């Protein structure tokens, strides 16, 4: 069966939860995915956090595909989690269920209470080990390193979108996302964004990055 035949039908409900830290580009990632879904003829909903939450705090967004009308995801109901930062990905365990696919950047951004010694950042390897035992499958790799390799440290969002596209869990092809990236990216960053996307795809094809139950 080819990847295209294997692809899920457009009516399948898919709840994708994005989580990260202010400045990581989570909102752009969810928007790009939503635009790609719209271009593919779907009825996506994208919900975003604005305002107070963006001052160095946690930024979450969602992309909802299929026949669902609700723009947000309740606890325990995400089909896919896209985690931009290790601790925030683990915190989103409460959105997961036994079948959830988690795609995670293993890089850490230390929150202020940890930076000043008032709290301890949990060991990253341990968080992902615990998480892998609870969810359907976990794809975890250093997306920050991929972004730097692509020439743009801020392109973690493109790396993760590439990884998501390569999992074949979306009801449309990677090309639909690339099309939006090409149309929306500042030409100055286009090359590095496309490279970041490809590195994300490659990371998803590397079995060493996967932990499946």
């Amino acid at each position, binding site marked *: 069966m080819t990847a295209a035949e294997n692809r899920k039908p457009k009516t399948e409900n898919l709840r994708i939860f994005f989580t990260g830290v202010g400045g990581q580009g989570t909102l752009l990632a969810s928007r790009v995915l939503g635009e790609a879904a719209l271009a593919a003829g779907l009825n996506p909903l994208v919900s975003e956090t604005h305002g107070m939450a963006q001052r160095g705090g946690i930024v979450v967004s969602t992309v909802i595909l299929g026949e669902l009308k*609700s723009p947000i995801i*309740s606890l325990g109901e995400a089909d896919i989690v896209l985690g931009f930062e290790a601790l925030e990905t683990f915190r989103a365990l409460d959105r997961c269920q036994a079948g959830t696919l988690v795609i995670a950047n293993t890089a850490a951004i230390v929150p202020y*209470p940890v930076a000043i010694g008032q709290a301890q950042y949990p060991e990253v390897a341990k968080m992902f080990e615990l998480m892998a035992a609870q969810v359907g499958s976990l794809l975890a790799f250093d997306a920050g390193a991929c972004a730097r390799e692509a020439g743009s440290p801020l392109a973690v969002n493109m790396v993760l979108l590439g990884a998501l596209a390569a999992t074949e869990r979306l009801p449309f092809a990677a090309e639909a996302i690339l099309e939006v990236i090409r149309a929306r990216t500042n030409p100055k960053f286009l090359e590095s964004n496309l490279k970041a996307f490809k590195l994300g795809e490659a990371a998803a094809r590397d079995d060493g990055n996967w932990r499946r139950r």
Partner: protein
Amino acid sequence: MSELLQGKADERRLFLGNEAIVRGALEAGVALVTTYPGTPSSEIGDRSYEISRQTDLAFEYSVNEKVALEVAAGAAASGWRVLTAMKHVGLNVAADTLMTLAYVGVKGGMVIVSADDPSLFSSQNEQDNRYYAKMASLPMLEPDSPREAKEMAQAAFALSEELGLPVLLRTTTRVNHTRGPVTLGTLASRPGPGHFEKNPFQKVMVPAVARVAHGRLLESLSRARALAEVSPFNRVSGRGVWGIIASGVSRSYVADALRELGLTDQIKFLELGFTHPLPEGLIGDFLPGLEKVLVVEELEPYLEESIRAIAQERGLTGAIRGKGPGLFSRLYEYHPGLVRETIARYFGVSYQPPAPMVPEQVLGRALPDRPPNLCPGCPHRAMYYSVKIALKDLGLTGIFPTDIGCYTLGLLPPLSMADFLICMGSSINTAAGISRATGQKVVAFIGDSTFFHSGLQGLANAVHQGHDFLLVILDNGTTAMTGSQPHPGVTLTPPGYPGKPIDIAGVVRGLGVEQLWQINPFHYKEALAATKEAVEASGMRVLISQAPCHLYESRITGKKRQARFQVTGECGECRDCLDYFGCPAMYLKPDSGVSQMLIDPDVCTGCAFCVQWCKCIKPVKKG
């Protein structure tokens, strides 16, 4: 060109709810948009501003919501179609206008967007503004999605003109900040200059005129009710002996829940989009034959109480429930799982809700918080630092009434520079009350945009009454919290911004303040000396702390960082940076066993403030 001006009719676009509202208004030929920014409504103004730079759309970031509503009311009285947008608490500021504008009415269509914020994502309360429609006797529409937000925004103008009344378009955060597919219609052109026709005995609300106008308003309201009965925004689906009535985004949660629970053929579902005045006939016809009815609406039991009254009038005795133990709460926004579970429980349908995993339990300990913080390089933090050190050096304890903006984040330790806050402008007046009642040393903080929004009258009062406190105006040159909108005091404006700047110090002097200090908070020595003087003085005095928002300045001017700084050598037992400053660029060297601070070069903005008071911090290199 703005995205909202692009695209052909019938094309689908992915719009934020707020963008959909602007597009709907443009398709209706809106001629003027006014607003004061406030989450979750801000993008309505921001997109309208962009469009006003590219077309003949008139737009203003008004000084506050009352001003925005009144400017719009004048234009609507002159025949223009107008839209004014604000967050829910903004309508409190404009409420005086709203109540009597309903008597005066409009000629051109007028849409008032009230963006409510259940769960208080970015607000000081979660009031339910649907009651404003009821209190003011105005028609109200409540969309469930960006698609419907556009349809309603567009339809509201015709509705407004048909009734001669402003229409309230009441949204919630989940509609404002959701992107969804919107089908484009055709952009309408604007009519050119309007014309104000004199008719003082209908438009000047003295008692004799207003007595008549109130009667006219109630007649219009009764015509509005007839329109609600047949409105396409109110509709019934499904069948069965159980019923659900819902409005707003809750309708989406119900629709998903009915499908997931397999109940679409067992439950009759009344979706209400035109929610004031309520279609009593439609509701009265929906209820008979239903054994039990569930009302799903976020926040207050606005629909529920009216629906019970309708049932009572018709002698219907089936259960009608919404809020209560085991059912829905008046607190916070709802979500799909909550609505699904409550529907199943209320109707006795078997359903096993998912048992969410608890990350803290899986890890076996609490996860570190990630509180929002003032940005690195923020001038507010520098000013707070000087006030903290001044008070410490003088051996004083300050009480800090604060106001609404980024600087409210000064609440969090280590800054801890916020003791009392109610709403926009409350810093100045509550400071007066606290100082009068206690004689304690009171230092109040207000931002520049908030000062123009609702600080001017308070300052005039404080001067006139001879109150005794220090007011610090934190002037960062923009309305930073909501996305850097301009205001009358702006020093850094977006390219082409036409507004005339007003000098804050001139305003303060003009209001009669005789003791005034003006500092750049990043010049530590001068800032500290001035702060000490200002704190120690008595009577009504003002200190203006002026330095641009770092984020905004670098975006507007492209200004790059001049230098980097680092802690060189062992810094020992001093904890001043940790205890008084709290810059996100600073961190404790991990596992060093000693108190050793370091500066993250990727986060440091090079504001060069810390280097002025810490002898261990040195510039490292350019770039």
